[in-house]
Every structure is written in C-alpha cells, then in structure tokens.
C-alpha cells in the first residue's frame, strides 16, 4: 500500500508574512536577473517577509538547479520564485515542490507546453517580446530589407518561441522583409558571439539591413560589431544592461526590448507571500505577462517610469483579479 | 677514481633486492658483474647511477692518488656519495647503459646520444655540436647510422648501439653496461668489446653485466658475483677462475652442463607447419619451411634478416602475398593471433618482451592465463583460483621467481619476465610454437633450463620454430638450421650438434657462402633492406669463442 507523502514544508498556507521565506532562483548567472536581488530586498521590507534570498548558483544546469532548490528548502525557505533552466523539465520540479508543501512561482519564463504546474507564471511573453523586437527592427530598417536573428541555445524551448515570434513579425511584413538567417548557440560566451557577428558581417554585411538579437552576448557583440564595421545595419537588442543602454545612447543600437525583472521579483515575492498566508489563485497555473517595452533613443531616459507603473499595475491585478483571499 | 660500495641494501615490496652488497671498482679494469636472473645486478647498477636510493650501505668515491690519512669520514677514505638523482651520478663521472632501452622515440639518433649533455649556446641547442658529438661516439663504436633518423624507426639492435653511444657521450670515468649486447650480433658485440678494452686501457672503469659467459671471459678482468642480493664473490681476478667455478658461484651449488642429445624425428610425419614458397608484403620471397611434430627448426640469421617478420606473417599480422601456409597438412589462411591460437594451435613467443610480450601493469597470474581464459571461463566468468592453479604449474616448471600471483609483472626481473612471456604459450597448449629469441638477457642456469624445457617440449611432440641470433643456442637445440638473409632463405643444414663445424657452415651461409665475397654483399643489398647492411660494417668475424 502506498503511503501519503508527508508535507515537508509544513502546511502550505496559513503562515504569517514573517514566516514566509522567499527564495528567488534564476537559471544561472546572467545580467538579466541581477535586479531580482534588489527586488527581493525591497519585497522583504515592504511586505514584512521573514527572509528573501537570491541564488544564482544553478549554472544553467537543471540537475544543479533542482539541487540548489532542495538545499534552499532544507535551509527553511518555503516559497520559491524560479526561472527554470530547462522549460521542458521544470514542471516536474514544480510538482515535486508543491507536493512537499512549498509555494512555487515560475518567474521570467513559463514551462514549455501549455501546462504550468507552478501556482502562477509571471514572465515576459518571450514570443511576444521577440515579436516586438523584430517589429522594432523592421521599423528601424524602414519596413523592408534583410533581417538576421541572433539567439541562444537552440535546444531550449524559449529559443524556439523566440524564433517563432521573429518569424511572425517577418511574415506580417508581407514579403518586404526577408529573414535571411537565424544563428543559434552563440550565447555561450562573448567571443563566439563576436566571431559569429564578424563572420556574418563579412559574409553579407552590406545585404543585411537589420539584426535582431534575443540573447545577451549576441546583443553586445552585434552592437559593437556593427559599430566597428561602420555599417548602417540596424541592431535591436534585448534587455537593458548598461552596456546596451550605452549602445542606445550612442546610436549603435536602434532599440532594445526590455523586460520587467524588477516587477517579476517584487510582485512574484508578494504573491508568494499572499499564497503562503492563505490566499489561493483563482486560476491555478495562470500565466501573467510582466510586460515588455521597446526602448529607443527617444524614451531611453523615461522607460523605467513606464515599467514601474506596470509593476504597480501587476500587483493590483493580482490583488483584485487573480488572487482569492478568504 | 675508485668507487667502493659497502653493504648496500635495497628493499622492494616483498623482495630484498640487495642484501649487503660490497663491490670495489678500480681504475683500469673491466669488472664483470654476474648473477642469475633476479640476483640484483640491475638494482646495484641503478643505485650506482643514482636511479634508486639505497636503503642502507655507503657509496664512496676515492679520487686518483688519494692518500688516505686516516680521515674522519671512514676507513677507506674518499668522499661519500649521496646521489639525489641520475644527474648527480653523471656529474660524478658515471655513465650507464641500462638493461631496458631508454631512448626518446621521436628524437633523432644524434639527439638521443647527446641527451645527457646537450651542447648549447645561449639556451639553444647547438645542433652542429650535437651531431659532432654523436658522430664521434658512433665512430668510436664503428657504427654508421643516419644521425637525423628518429630512433623509433630503428631496429632493436640499432637502438641498443645508440644506447651504448649515449653512454660513451658522457665521457665518464666509470661506465656501467647492463647487458649491452643482448640484442647485438656477435660481430657487433666484438666491436663493442674492442671499445671497452680501449676504455679500460685509458684507465677507466667498465662494469659489465652479461649472461653470455663467453664474452665475459673474453673481456673482463675481475668479477663480482651476486646471489640472492648478496655479493658472494668480490672482485676476484677472472683469470684464476674457470667457467664452471663462476657458474657454481652464481648458482650456489655444483652445476653440470646439460648435454642435449639429438631427437629422433620421423621425417615422414605430416609437417605441423609448412610454408610453401611464401612471399609477404614485408618483402620475403619464396620462403619454404617445414616443421614436423617433435622437431626444432632453428631459424638463424643476423638481426634484421626478416625472421620475426616471417613469424608475423604466419600469424596473420602481415600479409602473405603468394604461396601457401599449411598446418597439419591442410592449407589455411590465418587472420589473427587469436585464430592461429584457437583454430590452429600455433603460438608465438615474441622477441620484444617488454612491448609485446607481457603486460607490465597486470598481475603475473593474468599475464600467464591470458591465452586460456576462454577455457578457464565458466559462464564467461574466470575465477582467480583457477588462474592460480594454472600459474602455479608454470611457476614451478619454469622456476619463475615471484612474491605471489598478484605481483605485477613489471616488478619481476628481466629474465623472469621473459619466462612469463613463454609460460603464457605453454599454458595455451599449442601444437606449433614459434619462439623468437627466447634467451636474450637470461642467466646461464635459466638459459640451460630454458633449453632443457624447449627440448622437452619438442620431445613431447611440439613442433618448434626457434628464431635465434645466438648461434650456440641454435646449435644446441635445433634439429635443422635454416638461415635467413635479407628476407630470403639462403640455406638449410642438418645439425650435427658440433659447434665448431656447424658454426662455420652457418656463418658462411649468413655471409653469402664465402667470407670475402663483397660482390655478393652488394648484390644482396640491392634486393633487400639496405639500412640493415650498415650494421655489418667492419671485418666479419665468426665471433663466438668456443666454450
């Protein structure tokens, strides 16, 4: 006969805020996640959480990430905001954690497929972010010409979604824009990205009017590469690391699509607290878009206000629409 | 300079390799160091050259003309030596040829010779000086070799000559030679010994380890004999000793030379192994041989004549391009050693023990039973106990000295390793055994035992093809002697077991019928391997003195 699994995390609900210890676990070290640190600290003071921590030691290895999460749980953390290294596997991790009585949020990326086993997923819609980026690139190109897409690990379903998003934007251009090449697997290190960009520009620099990048290292490399080659190719980058923002300011980057990591960390922690203290999701597994924003030279100084507004809005939406606290 | 070692002790796990050895080496002598396999000769040499640190005893160097004025250091006077490594020994003026070959395979001949004292200018190798040095040493040995050739491409004999040249290059006052002639022909050995005598006459000390007592008696002045790690005779004048006295010292008991009578072989018996006009990709042309059950066919020739390669062709390791191979009267094609062993019961004891014969890092028992695992296995599983039974049989029969079945083969002395390499084929229970240079580096008693064993195997009905460059050995053992030269058979003689007559006939065959026929030499080198011809420069002498 099969014994019921004991709830190691204690009762899932009914804690006080001070008993809630939130761990924010990114997939590995990456500039994108750095705002989570501050967001966690802010959430702790704002909502009176017992503890928040930020642990990026997963090193882009799903096995290690599972290990890290379990270690954090053993340390007494009972609510988790997780960016799954492998979107295909992460639902199993979520299920396991929930079985053991922990609150889980999928942050910054949702599991692959249509099912989300976490309580909710608060992330950029990667496909739509890529779509927006491609749109921005096409606009910068003047609505026609050849476009190249540079991105990361091809055996990651998020990469697949980005490819779909870019393709969609290109399709919508009605044949005036051609996606000449999609280069994957150049996010491992900056040198590979630089090499790929140099080769690309050497091979068809003059025929490429736009480059849309949906991964960090390729974005940095493309901005620098185009600038160095003195080409008029338009580069659209991803995120708002200061290197990229510098590129926007000096014109080497036409636009960047920023996401809302602060909002994910902050609101994510908040909702995890709410769930731990007795609220439930009206619709478990709900996917919420944390917003993506096209930043150009015009709004580079002000986009953050827009983003903060979005964060406030998100929190309110959870309070009023998504959570039921009885 | 005079080197005195007192009460040296060296312990290896499970063995006291040296257990109180004293040796006194005086200038201007050739000092023979004798002993059976595993007696500790190589260990002593390694201590004298800083390779091993002794666990006890002292090494003392007495400079020339030293007047020992009762110095504080100790009785015999002089300076006590503590070698931190081989380099220290070199600095002290000690040069050595180790028993194992120690060359850098990818380096050229010249560079290997000069390795110990690389001539340099401003941190760079002075290549002209390297060549000069190497050339000088080779010239002293009267050997011609391509200085720029990587030693990996040389034959075993050539490598050994490079080793000797390398030891000469250090210009040392004390030269230690650990079986320097094991892969050399008698002519090459003679050249070497001429050099040794010259060095002695210059006032240097030469220590010679050899199992070839004829050579020892011909060249050495004094002798130290080791037995079981102890020096049982120290610096005796060799002139006062007979061969059998020396052997008695080594063996530790009275010893009789073994007389091996001729075997009676039925000439009508179906040949166990027959080669019919075999030509190979390796260059053999029309080689025909017959070995019958119970018969030993000696295959003599100079090193490099192509005998080992012929064996390889029989085993399917080299391609036979034409001709037929018959086993037990039936034509066969052999594709691998495994097939030769399991389907045709042919075994091959390689001449190249270290590289091809044994597994240095494996246990002794695995080394012996590797050929019979298929028979020992039950359900694919081999049990240690059944292995040990097999091993025990051959340990006794061959007198292999080991500390236990789990000892690593690499820890055995050279001679015992050679026995392992034979034991594996005895265990395999073959009908035909090709034995290649079986007694290189083997002491007299073991050699005699080996000979007895080989004869016994033949008497038991085994067909044996004995490849050997040791003429006395061939004459002792073989029923017939085939002679090979430049990958061709140049003749076959029935053995009458009289060394004087047989050696004359065989050596004439080797050198193309008549001694002075330079034309025959030249003609042969057109067809065969010209490189190997360079080894035979100098006046050909029928080498081996009668015992």
């Amino acid at each position, binding site marked *: *006969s*099969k*014994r019921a699994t004991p709830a190691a995390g204690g009762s899932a609900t009914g804690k006080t805020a001070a008993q809630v210890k939130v761990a924010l676990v990114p997939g590995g070290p990456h500039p994108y996640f750095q705002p989570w640190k501050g967001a966690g600290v802010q959430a702790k003071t704002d909502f009176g959480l017992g503890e928040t921590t930020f*642990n990026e*030691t997963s090193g882009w*290895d*799903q*096995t*290690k990430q*599972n*290990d*890290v999460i*379990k*270690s954090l749980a*053993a*340390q*007494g953390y009972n609510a988790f905001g997780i960016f799954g290294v*492998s979107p*295909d*596997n992460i*639902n*199993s*991790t979520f*299920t*396991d954690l929930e*079985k*053991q009585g922990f609150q889980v949020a999928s942050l910054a990326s949702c599991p*692959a*497929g249509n099912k989300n086993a976490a309580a909710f997923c608060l992330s950029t819609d990667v496909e739509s972010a890529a779509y927006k980026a491609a749109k921005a690139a096409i606009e910068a190109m003047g609505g026609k010409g050849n476009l190249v897409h540079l991105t990361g690990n*091809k*055996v990651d*379903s998020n990469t*697949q979604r980005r490819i779909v998003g870019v393709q969609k934007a290109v399709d919508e251009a009605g044949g005036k824009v051609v996606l000449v090449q999609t280069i994957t697997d150049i996010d491992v290190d900056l040198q590979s990205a630089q090499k790929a960009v140099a080769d690309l520009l050497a091979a068809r620099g003059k025929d490429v009017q736009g480059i849309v990048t949906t991964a960090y290292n390729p974005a940095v490399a493309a901005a620098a590469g185009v600038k160095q080659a003195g080409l008029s190719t338009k580069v659209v980058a991803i995120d708002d690391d200061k290197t990229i923002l510098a590129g926007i300011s000096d014109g080497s980057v036409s636009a960047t699509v920023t996401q809302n990591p602060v909002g994910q960390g902050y609101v994510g922690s908040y909702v995890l607290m709410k769930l731990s203290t007795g609220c439930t999701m009206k619709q478990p597994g709900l996917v919420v878009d944390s917003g993506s924003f096209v930043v150009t030279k015009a709004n580079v100084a002000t986009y953050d206000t827009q983003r903060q507004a979005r964060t406030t809005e998100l929190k309110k939406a959870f309070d009023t629409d998504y959570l039921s606290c009885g | 300079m005079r080197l005195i070692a007192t009460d040296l002790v060296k312990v290896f*796990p*499970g063995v006291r390799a040296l257990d109180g050895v004293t040796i006194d080496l005086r200038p201007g002598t050739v000092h023979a160091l004798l002993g059976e396999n595993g007696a500790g000769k190589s260990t002593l040499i390694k201590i004298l050259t800083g390779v091993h640190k002794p*666990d006890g005893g002292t090494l003392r160097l007495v400079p020339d003309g030293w007047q020992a004025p009762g110095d504080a250091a100790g009785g015999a006077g002089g300076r006590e030596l503590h070698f931190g490594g081989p380099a220290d020994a070199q600095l002290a003026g000690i040069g050595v040829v180790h028993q194992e070959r120690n060359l850098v395979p990818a380096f050229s001949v010249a560079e290997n010779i000069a390795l110990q004292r690389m001539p340099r200018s401003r941190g760079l190798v002075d290549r002209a000086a390297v060549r000069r040095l190497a050339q000088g040493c080779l010239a002293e040995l009267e050997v011609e070799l391509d200085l720029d050739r990587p030693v990996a491409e040389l034959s075993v004999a050539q490598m050994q000559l490079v080793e000797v040249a390398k030891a000469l290059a250090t210009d040392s006052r004390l030269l230690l030679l650990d079986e320097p002639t094991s892969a050399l022909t008698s002519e090459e050995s003679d050249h070497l010994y001429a050099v040794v005598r010259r060095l002695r006459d210059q006032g240097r000390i030469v220590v010679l380890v050899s199992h070839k007592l004829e050579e020892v008696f011909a060249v050495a002045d004094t002798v130290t004999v080791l037995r079981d790690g102890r020096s049982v005779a120290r610096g005796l004048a060799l002139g006062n000793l007979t061969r059998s006295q020396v052997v008695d010292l080594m063996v530790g008991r009275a010893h009789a030379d073994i007389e091996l009578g001729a075997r009676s072989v039925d000439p009508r018996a179906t040949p166990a192994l027959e080669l019919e006009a075999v030509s190979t990709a390796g260059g053999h042309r029309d080689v025909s041989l017959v070995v019958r059950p119970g018969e030993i066919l000696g295959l003599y020739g100079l090193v490099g004549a192509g005998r080992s390669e012929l064996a390889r062709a029989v*085993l399917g390791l080299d391609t036979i391009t034409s001709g037929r191979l018959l086993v037990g009267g039936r034509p066969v094609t052999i594709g*691998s*050693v*495994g097939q030769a*062993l*399991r389907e045709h019961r042919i075994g091959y004891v390689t001449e190249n023990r270290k590289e*091809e*014969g044994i*597994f*240095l890092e*494996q246990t002794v028992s*695995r080394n012996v039973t*590797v050929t019979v*695992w298929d028979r*020992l*296995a039950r359900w694919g*599983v*081999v049990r240690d106990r059944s292995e040990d039974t097999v091993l025990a049989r051959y340990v006794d029969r061959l007198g292999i000295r080991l*500390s*236990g079945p*789990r000892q*690593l083969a690499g*820890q055995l002395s050279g001679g015992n390793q050679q026995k392992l390499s034979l034991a*594996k084929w005895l265990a395999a229970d073959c009908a035909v055994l090709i034995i290649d240079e079986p007694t290189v580096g083997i002491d007299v008693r073991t050699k005699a035992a080996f000979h007895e064993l080989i004869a016994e195997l033949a008497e038991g009905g085994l067909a044996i093809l004995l490849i050997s460059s040791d003429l006395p050995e061939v004459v002792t053992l073989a029923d017939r002697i085939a002679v090979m030269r430049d990958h061709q058979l140049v003749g076959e003689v029935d053995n009458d077991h009289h060394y004087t007559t047989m050696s004359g006939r065989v050596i004439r065959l080797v050198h193309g019928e008549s001694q002075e026929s330079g034309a025959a030499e030249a003609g042969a080198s057109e067809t065969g391997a010209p490189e190997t011809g360079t080894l035979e420069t100098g006046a050909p002498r029928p080498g081996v003195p009668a015992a």
Partner: protein
Amino acid sequence: MPDTTTSTASQAEPEAPAPAPVDQRRRGLPWWANPRVGLVAVVVALVAIFSGLRPSFLDVDLTLVPMQADITVFVVVGLAQLAVLSLGHMNLAVPRMAALSAFAAGFTYDKLHAPLVVGLLAALLVGTLVGALAGGIITWTGVNSFVVTLALDFGLLGLVALLYSWFTSGVAFSLHPDGMDALRSDTFNDYCAGPICGPPVPLVVPIAVVALVVVGVLFRFSRLGREILMCGSNARAALLSGIPVSRRVIQAHALSGLLCGLAGWLLAINNGAFSASVGENFLLPSFLAPVLGGTLLAGGAVSVVGTLLGAILNSVIQKGLNLLQFEVDQLQIYIGVVLLVALSLDRVRHVLADRRGVRP
C-alpha cells in the same frame, strides 16, 4: 569498518596502480594504503563537517533522498566513462550519446505509447549502437578515441536537435509514460507492507546498483572485461596474445554507449522530461567520478567501487556547499579547493604509505 571496506573494495575490482612508477598493490602495506579507504575517510569527514555546520544536511526528504537520486545518475555516467578508460581511451561523446538515447526512449513513449521498460530498452539499444559505432570508427581508422568521440559528439549534437525538431513541436517530448513520475519522486519508504515501510531510498537507486554490480563483475571476473583491461594495458601484447583487440575496443565503447543510454534515461526520469538537453552537463562528472575513485586515464585498471565513492564525494561536496549558500563565485572556488584537498589527502596517504614501505 576499514577492514571490510578494503577487502570488499579489493575484491570487487582490480585496483589502480599509483601514478608513480611504483604500484601500491604491493603486499605488506597498511590497510589505509588502499585508495578506497582514503576516499571513504574524506567522504565521512566532509559529511561530518557539513552536517555540523548545517544540520539540514541530514534532512531525509530534502537532502538525502535527492542526493541519492543524483548519485544514481552520476555513478552510471562515471561508469560510462570508466568503460573506455579501461582501454586508455576517452569518450567525449558521453553527453550526446545520452541525449540520443533519451530521444529514443522519448520517441517510443510519445509516438509508440510504449511502456516504461520498452523505452529503457530502446535507450540502451541506441546507446549501445552509437557506442559500437564510435569503437568501430576508432578501430577501423586507427584515429585517436579523443578525436573520434569529439567529432561524434558534434555530429550527434546536430542530429539530436534535428530529430527533436522533426518529431516534436519543440525540443522535448511532452508525454510521460505510466510509472515515470512514481519512479522519479517515490522512495521505497512510500511503499509499506502493513506497518513496515521501506528505507528512504529512491526507486531509481537499484538500477545504478545493478549497473555497478554488472560492470564490477565484468571487469573483475569476466573474460571479456579482463581482456579489455589487457588491451588497455598493452594493446600490442594483447594482440600478440590472441586477444581480438579490435573487437574488444568496439565492445568497450558499446558498453560505454549502453551506460550513456542508461544515464540519459535516468536523468530524463529524474528531471521529468525527455528533452534535447539531457546529458548536456555529463562530460566533467563522467571523468570526475572514476578518476576521483582511482581509475587511471592510462588504461589497464579500473575501480568500480572507487567510481561510486567518487560520485558520492562529488555529490556531497556540491550539496554541502549549496547548503552553505555561497555566492556563485565563492561556490566555484570552494568546490575546486575541496576537490584539490580531497585529492591531495589521497596523496598524503600515499606518501605515508611509502614511508612505511619503501621509497619509489
């Protein structure tokens, strides 16, 4: 304890010679000269230190059970590398052999709706075939195994991505066969006969135990394993002793492939999906476990028990440092340092043993 450990260790597999020319398998050495004892000591010491610093290190559900599941995978990964280290070869394609095998399993589940065990067999079969292919290329061409498996890894990387793009909508199979989730998350403790429940051991653990025993027996007792070791020890001598060296090389690589298949399947079960990223991070652990356990890169000697201990050591270090919650940079540094110290302790032990015995 030490005595039983040493004796089982030395019975279970041929021991590895020391890196120095002198071997430690000499007689008359103290029991602690056995490398496995050193490893056990290091593991015990680390466990003591970590559980002293963080009592949660001994938490059954959150630490010990997941650790066992990890060790299960990495022991098999280590064995996969060990299978070719026995020859003195390397298999750099371990990650992608695992990925391809996992694809095969996922394919049978998703497309053929096969039961769990059929997918396992498919994974093993595919792994074996790819491994044999690697071995075949190595023997037929005589090219170094490092190069062949490196190139093969590249090739398979592309192939796996292509296969997933052909047969799935993304890069993973979404369907889970029956029993997969139970196998992943259950322990024997979840199954009770009346009041008695099993130990808190994950259901996957016995699979690794079987692999360990089979590989151990193979290399210790079987003719096949011994002949492979002989080939690793001296290929020329092996050939001249009638061992079919080419066949043994192919068999060792096939075994490596088979174990890669098993490891890939186990990881997919553990992580919950058959995806293209299975095995991505296998390469370093595959070397770490056997080498920490005393298997030489030179071939001719392997240590199966050592591989288990190496995998455990590796896992303990990871887990302990995770619990100590270092930043990512410190974590890396400490892992490296602890590895170095663990290895050097082994060396200290050698030196002491040599003092007791003799100098090399």
